[in-house]
């Protein structure tokens, strides 16, 4: 789900963010604090989580979106480290011990665990997908596509670059916050290390492998990267190496991602259908 949010930023608006885990973390910590200190239930804290992540997205996006491409990537890495350090060293956030004892989500009086939680996530995922789909069909989305392709041409057509990049950024961070809150309530324990830089890279891999700028791409990417560690458990020590290899292969053979343009699946189907004829 967080991958979907990142997809809005990278795939739709063309802004490379390498600090997406920070926003997942902000969402998770907000939910955790509200639940443990204020005793809020998940559904009560949900709107607050969204507002908080959006505000942070806005505040952190405003300065960083003014720089371009590679600089933006570096800035967002910085944001990631700063946020992680904040969680780690400020006692209010539980320091290195993190926050434990987060109650699971209550729905109609019963605790959501296992399958129930899975359905709840699926439900939110559908909402997120719907938001993404709607965004890509709206004028705001179109403005972002145009900015991604040619910034100077887009601005000569009345599109304010800062405004729409920021919009995509905020939508992306909101979704990240939501996913963070969900995971905090599921795992019931969070610490700063969960939202560190490698997690950002992990998210980026999901988006790239699935297909940037596509609706279902990030979902597929997340499924693949979620399942792979299970399948390749014997080579767990070489996982990062394997990711790198996978990413390089993707960039070489499928730059648009599995569900992106000129996707391998479709090409193979075409070949097969030609042979049948």
């Amino acid at each position, binding site marked *: 789900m967080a991958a979907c949010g990142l997809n809005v930023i990278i795939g739709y608006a063309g802004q490379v963010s390498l600090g997406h885990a920070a926003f997942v973390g902000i969402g998770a910590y907000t939910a955790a604090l509200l639940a443990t200190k204020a005793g809020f239930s998940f559904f009560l804290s949900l709107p607050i989580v969204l507002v908080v992540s959006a505000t942070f997205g806005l505040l952190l996006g405003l300065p960083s979106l003014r720089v371009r491409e590679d600089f933006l990537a570096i800035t967002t890495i910085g944001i990631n480290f700063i946020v992680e350090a904040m969680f780690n060293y400020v006692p209010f956030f539980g320091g290195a011990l993190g926050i434990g004892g987060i109650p699971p989500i209550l729905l109609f009086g019963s605790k959501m665990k296992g399958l129930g939680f899975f359905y709840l996530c699926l439900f939110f995922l559908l909402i997120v997908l719907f938001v993404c789909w*709607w965004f890509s*069909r*709206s*004028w*705001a*989305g*179109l*403005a972002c*596509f*145009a900015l991604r*392709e*040619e910034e*100077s*041409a*887009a*601005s*000569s*057509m*009345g*599109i*304010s*670059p800062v*405004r*729409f990049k920021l919009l995509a950024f905020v939508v992306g961070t909101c979704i990240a916050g939501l996913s963070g809150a969900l995971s905090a309530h599921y795992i019931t324990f969070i610490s700063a290390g969960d939202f560190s830089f490698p997690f950002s890279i992990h998210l980026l891999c999901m988006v790239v492998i699935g297909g940037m700028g596509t609706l279902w791409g990030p979902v597929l990417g997340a499924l693949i990267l979620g399942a792979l560690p299970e399948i390749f458990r014997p080579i767990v020590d070489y996982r990062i190496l394997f990711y790198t290899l996978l990413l390089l292969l993707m960039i070489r053979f499928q730059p648009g991602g599995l569900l992106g*343009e000129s996707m391998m699946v479709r090409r193979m189907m075409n070949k097969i259908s030609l042979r049948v004829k």
Partner: protein
Amino acid sequence: MSRALLEVEDVSKHFGGLKALDDVSFRVMPGEILGLIGPNGAGKTVCFNLISGVYKPTLGRILFDGQSTEGSPPHEIANKGVGRTFQIVKPFGSLSVLENVLVAQGISKYRAFSKMWSSWRCESEAKRGLEVLERVGLGDLARRKAGLLPLGNLRRLEIARALIVGHKLILLDESFSGLRHEEISRLENLVRSIREDGITVLLIEHNTRVAMGLCDRLVVLDHGRKIAEGHPEEIQKNEKVIEAYLGRKRAKNAA
């Protein structure tokens, strides 16, 4: 004569020590086709970038429709009704030709936060977009991906986008360069029909024959300075202009 649509007053643009434009003034009257010509590096494109807000002038003022625009960002100037094309074409490569035009059609929606969430994939918008494409002669390529089009079509696509944005003034930056003869004459007709709709055209042109034939008036730049202004016939006889294009010795021989 009525009030000028665009006034460029004593504008200079310096890049460090380089004076790309030095104290240039001219006016564009409503409904005319004004040509901006000059040798390479004369400052024509810089002038366009100043008018459309990409650069801010070092000195001087630019008035559009009586309002000063220097220092406004490009998207605000576009909102006032100035459309432009680029010398090096800038299509939205991975979008379709029709979508490229639709981006320009959204101009009124990008300003209001409430309006930008409505969908752009509706019949009426597509129809409007197709009409404009039909007009520039790209109707049958609407579904094609813009990045795959040849240069001539891309130039027309840029004009289509500029037409939608620029309901008062459009700036054409060398839209004729690199095109075949037939394409040039088709484009000339298009520019004339744009003027007939009441849209003012300011164009940069290298091809002097096109500029002479198409423009009502010409402004000639050389090394960042305005060296002449007037009707095409006057310009053709102007010694300074001949000198700038051909060099001093040849100018004497020609005279």
